[in-house]
């Protein structure tokens, strides 16, 4: 195996999950930012751990999609956008965990 020294910047949030990601092992938290029924593109979405500490941040795709690679447990997903902010608290397990985050002023 090679050491991945890619940067820590966020990968394309709209791209499919890379084939190298093993959903038997990875805990993926994935979903959309929404204001009402509309999705919100370009929102800043951050993942906070169970103590409220920052773990990661991505910019949602133009379609409002985001994705994190976490670990089983409790997490908070918080979104900040020009249409307001909002958050969802989720308990996740290995595999794909799909959620949505509603933002409002």
């Amino acid at each position, binding site marked *: 195996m090679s050491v*991945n020294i890619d940067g*820590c910047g966020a990968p394309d949030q709209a791209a499919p999950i890379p084939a190298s990601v093993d959903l038997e092992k990875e805990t993926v938290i994935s979903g959309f930012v929404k204001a009402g029924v509309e999705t919100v593109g370009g929102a800043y979405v951050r993942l906070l751990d169970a103590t409220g500490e920052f773990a990661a*941040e991505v910019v949602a795709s133009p379609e409002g999609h985001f994705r994190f*690679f976490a*670990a089983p447990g409790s997490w908070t997903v918080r979104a900040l956008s*020009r249409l307001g902010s909002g958050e969802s608290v989720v308990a996740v397990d290995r595999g794909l965990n799909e959620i949505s985050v509603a933002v409002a002023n």
Partner: protein
Amino acid sequence: MARDSVLVSADWAEKNLDAPGVVFVEVDEDTSAYDGGHIPGAVKLDWKKDLQDPIRRDFVNQQQFQDLLSARGIGNDDTVILYGGNNNWFAAYAYWYFKLYGHGDVKLIDGGRKKWELDGRPLSADLVDRPETSYVAQPQDKSLRAFRDDVLAAIGSSNLIDVRSPDEYAGRLLAPAHLPQEQAQRAGHVPTALSVPWSKAANEDGTFKSDDELREIYNGAGLDDSKPTIAYCRIGERSSHTWFVLRELLGHGDVKNYDGSWTEWGSLVGVPVALGDEPGVAE
């Protein structure tokens, strides 16, 4: 150090877009954001393509740096205003390069691209073409850069600050949580390193916290500001953010960034590694 000598507000930036002798530079790992829309007149630096050596695990050398800045139309006397995504991680990394290679006047936009976007300030997709210059870089200032032997020597004697997330520090995750976790190296942290995630220094909109808040964060974590400090993360850009806070905002004298960071340390043979939430002890 005075905050306004190293940091400008988004408001100042917008009012000085056309100021003579001021060059705006967006720094990102993924420049698709720049290509879609950037601060009007800003040139781009691609963290991977422009700032990393294409072959060796190192960043651009003195000659490569001066060729790059010349090609981008940046002069030695220009005031360089850096900004970028990811809460200015890569802009802070570039700021560190500019200091390493002796640039006189360089500043960050407080809050970076995020603050600019959230404020609804103008973005432009126009091509930016500045006339080429003859930039002259200085030899690397090694007082700002730590290598692995410096880190080994610092265990038990100097401050080591691990700025990754608590789960990366403890060894529960190997990479930030927006990236796939496959890695070859060991998880954990350098024994005695304090855990102060870079994010503690930033507000939610990406701006830096006040000097008083910052002092409280690092003193509260146990940083002894009478001793030298080495900051590290996974590849050295989040720790540039903390290096900027400690040296440029709080004025600590001897602060180095360990750009080898965890991808190097966690792959070395024969070095100590601590697991769990506590710093651990020097062997």
